[in-house]
C-alpha cells in the first residue's frame, strides 16, 4: 500500500511517501489511521485530529468506513486552500 502525505502532514510525519504493509485486519480507512498512529510519535500527532484531516483512496475522497487494500494509494492531507 502506498501512502502519501501533503502540507503539514508531510512535515509532521517526516515523510512525503511511504510503502506500508498493514496487517490483514486493517480493511478500512479508520482502521488504517489507527494502525498508522502506532508507527511513531510523528504519525501519531499528524493523524490524531480527524477533523483537520482529509483522506483520499486512489485519488478519490474517502470516509472512515471506506475500504482500503494492499494495492491502494492512500493520501492524507489537511483541508485544501488553493484557488
Amino acid at each position, binding site marked *: 500500500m502506498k501512502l502519501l502525505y501533503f*502540507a503539514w502532514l508531510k512535515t509532521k510525519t517526516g515523510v512525503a511517501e511511504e510503502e506500508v504493509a498493514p496487517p490483514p485486519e486493517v480493511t478500512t480507512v479508520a482502521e488504517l489511521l489507527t494502525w498508522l498512529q502506532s508507527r511513531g510519535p510523528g504519525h501519531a500527532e499528524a493523524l490524531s485530529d480527524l477533523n483537520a484531516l482529509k483522506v483520499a483512496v486512489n485519488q478519490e475522497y474517502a470516509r472512515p468506513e471506506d475500504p482500503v487494500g494492499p494495492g491502494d494509494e492512500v493520501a492524507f492531507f489537511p*483541508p485544501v486552500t488553493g484557488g
Partner: protein
Amino acid sequence: MIRVQEEDFDLGAELAKLTAGNAKVGGLAVFVGLVRDMAGAQDIGAMTLEHYPGMTEKMLTRVEAEANERWPLEASLIIHRVGRLEPGDQIVLVAAASAHREAAFEACQFLIDWLKTKAPFWKLEETGDGAKWVEARDSDDTATERWRAPKTGAAE
C-alpha cells in the same frame, strides 16, 4: 480545458482563445485569483503552492465536466498554478462562456467555489515568523454547500 502549471498565464490570450470563432457566446464570466500581500493580519512575502499531482487533474477535469452538465456552456477553462508565487502574481483562472450571462456567472462561481474547497492544493505562506500553512476558511465550505445537489458526484 484544465491546466496545472508552474508558469504564469497570459490572461488576455487565454480568454481570447476561449471565445475565438464561437459567435454563440453572449457572455463570458471570469475569475482570477491573485496573491495578496496581506493574509489575515500579517504581511506575507510570497507563498508556495503544493498539490497532489494526479488527483488534482482528475478532480479539475471532473468538476469542469460537471459544470458543463449543469449549465449550457460554450467553453470553460481552469488554470491553476503551483510552486512559488509572489504578491500580485496570478494563482488561478476560472472562466465560463455561455449564450447568456446567468449561466456564465453561475458556472464560474460554481467552479471557483468548488476548487477552493475540494481541489487538493495547499498554500504555504512565507511570513515574518517563517513559513506557515494557510488554514481553510469556513466561508469557502459554505460557498460550496449551496451547489450541492443530490445527484452530484463531483461535489462529494
